[in-house]
């Protein structure tokens, strides 16, 4: 469609409703470049980020009480557990329940800890029975990642490893390779600063 201004004025002929060929070519070029870029690398952008691989047994650290312990990484367990002996529950000065327990690190060094009781948990044992265990929150470092998570306290003296790390820590961070163990030790320098 074109329009013409009357005599004496600047004559303008405008074409409306149809974009120029230059603009269409430009749009097509942009789309081609975008498609080529997307085809080559889009899957990495949209899929879940890659996770580090750890062995089924690793050394982990508890920065709050400077202990390094051996831990099984159990993808079959919901929660994590920590070997504790001489467990006692009492009401602290704040009126809240406190758990006192003893742990031993990989050097055989004993420590007695007192922590607020987070809750009591019913855990299904390997025989299928339910056991009530106290739960505390601790910061644990596995590989280069740390997080405060819940640990059930239990007597694991008849087990080979004093710590069991379950899905409450592992999910979203690591995959577990059954053919490897002690792949790399705890290295969470930032964990000490944050506590």
């Amino acid at each position, binding site marked *: 469609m074109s329009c013409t201004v009357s005599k004496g004025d600047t004559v303008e002929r405008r074409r409306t409703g149809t974009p120029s060929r230059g603009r269409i070519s430009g749009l097509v070029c942009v789309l081609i470049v975008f498609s080529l870029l997307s*085809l080559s690398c889009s899957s990495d952008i949209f899929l879940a980020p890659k996770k580090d691989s750890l062995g*089924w047994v690793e050394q982990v650290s508890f920065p709050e009480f400077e202990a390094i312990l051996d831990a099984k990484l159990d993808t*079959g367990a919901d929660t994590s557990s920590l070997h504790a002996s001489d467990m006692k529950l009492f009401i602290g000065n704040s009126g809240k329940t406190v758990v006192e327990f003893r742990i031993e690190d990989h050097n055989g060094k004993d420590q007695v800890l007192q922590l607020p009781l987070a809750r009591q948990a019913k855990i299904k044992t390997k025989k299928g029975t339910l056991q009530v265990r106290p739960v505390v929150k601790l910061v644990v470092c596995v590989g280069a990642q740390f997080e405060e998570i819940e640990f059930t306290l239990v007597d694991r003296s008849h087990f080979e490893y004093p710590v069991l790390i379950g899905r409450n820590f*592992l999910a979203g961070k690591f995959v*577990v390779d*059954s053919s490897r163990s002690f792949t790399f030790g705890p290295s969470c320098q930032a964990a000490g600063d944050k506590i």
Partner: protein
Amino acid sequence: MKKNALWLLLFVFLVGSPFFAIAEKAEEVPMVQGRVVLGYIEHVVIAGDVDLEALMSPVHHFSELGVLDLKVKEENGEKYASFALRGKKGTTKDFKVKVIADKAKPDGKKQPIVVRMPLCLGKFQLTPQFRLVDRSKFEQEVRLGRRVLAGRAVIDPSTTHAAMPDCKDLATKKSSKKSS
């Protein structure tokens, strides 16, 4: 008219191609360091047609199979275990399998009965050893340990059902069932 149709086709191709690429990539089996990535719970098929759920447990050396009505009998000097498996659909199937190990521990405690059973896990077709136990108090009838998983797969504890059973044996049985 033809020109507009061509432009429309080109537009759809250029805009849609990244999404087709992602969909194609998503169907590929995820791998980490040359190992297949499995979820912490997977569908498995035992003995070709018993559908069960399995818990991946790399902290355990041995694998377990939850069975019903377990009995051990001796025939011609060999021990055989007879038992039933209840699949996900609720139907039970009976088995009679030669026992590999049935020994007492030095402390006198009896070890579980161990047999070999065909297993389909993702694309892996194996005949691993299973301890026959009562797993009625657990959610999964099967527990797979390191002897099955090591060297084959890594476990992603944030995923389940990452690899449906896809073994040649299964495909053959399904096609023969359909044709009959």
